[in-house]
């Protein structure tokens, strides 16, 4: 039972490079989310998706792009990485929405932008 996985777990990149963080879940959950976690800010929502091919912005979407061609995958792309995007990124999934369903989190990707 793999659950929800993220890759890579650690990534170091340089300013201006494109980076893609992968997220895969095996539960066939409809809803998926990307968060970033920064000291003093808790978790902030970047993007979310209600189903394949349905995505929308969260509270900090600038500089990020998502896609969801398959239900189980929800990659997050930093089109041109900046130092301010150094963070820990968490992917989560949920069987339903409405704000009342448990979200299941991946182990996170620690991204450093030099």
């Amino acid at each position, binding site marked *: 039972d793999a659950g929800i996985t993220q890759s890579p777990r650690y990534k170091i990149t340089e300013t201006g490079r494109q980076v893609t963080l992968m997220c895969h879940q095996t539960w066939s959950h409809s809803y998926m989310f990307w968060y970033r976690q920064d000291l003093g800010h808790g978790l902030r929502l970047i993007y979310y998706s209600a189903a394949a091919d349905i995505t*929308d912005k969260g509270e900090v979407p600038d500089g990020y792009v998502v896609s969801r061609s398959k239900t189980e995958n929800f990659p997050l792309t930093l089109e041109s990485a900046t130092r301010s995007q150094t963070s820990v990124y968490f992917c989560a999934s949920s069987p339903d929405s409405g704000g009342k369903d448990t*979200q299941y989190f991946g182990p996170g990707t620690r991204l450093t932008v030099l």
Partner: protein
Amino acid sequence: AQSVTQPDIHITVSEGASLELRCNYSYGATPYLFWYVQSPGQGLQLLLKYFSGDTLVQGIKGFEAEFKRSQSSFNLRKPSVHWSDAAEYFCAVGARIGGSTLGRLYFGRGTQLTVWP
């Protein structure tokens, strides 16, 4: 607008002591409330959640939380802390996104718990 406040950034307790982590929320409707725990280097794991009914909610690992509507609070408690409880704890409120049926979680900034042996 919905928000969650965890007033304590860092709490230190001795092993075996009782614990209470505070959480206050702001939300116009009936809230869905959650507590998550994050161990070092790990993702978040659900401890417990409140939707309706009994205002005292039991969770995993011996934790409980009490919903107090009059105080807009959802404090997490444990009667006797174990060294393995050292982690970061996040309170969250679930809310709809705009006028849609979609929902999301709004997280507090977290409380770091240190446990002294």
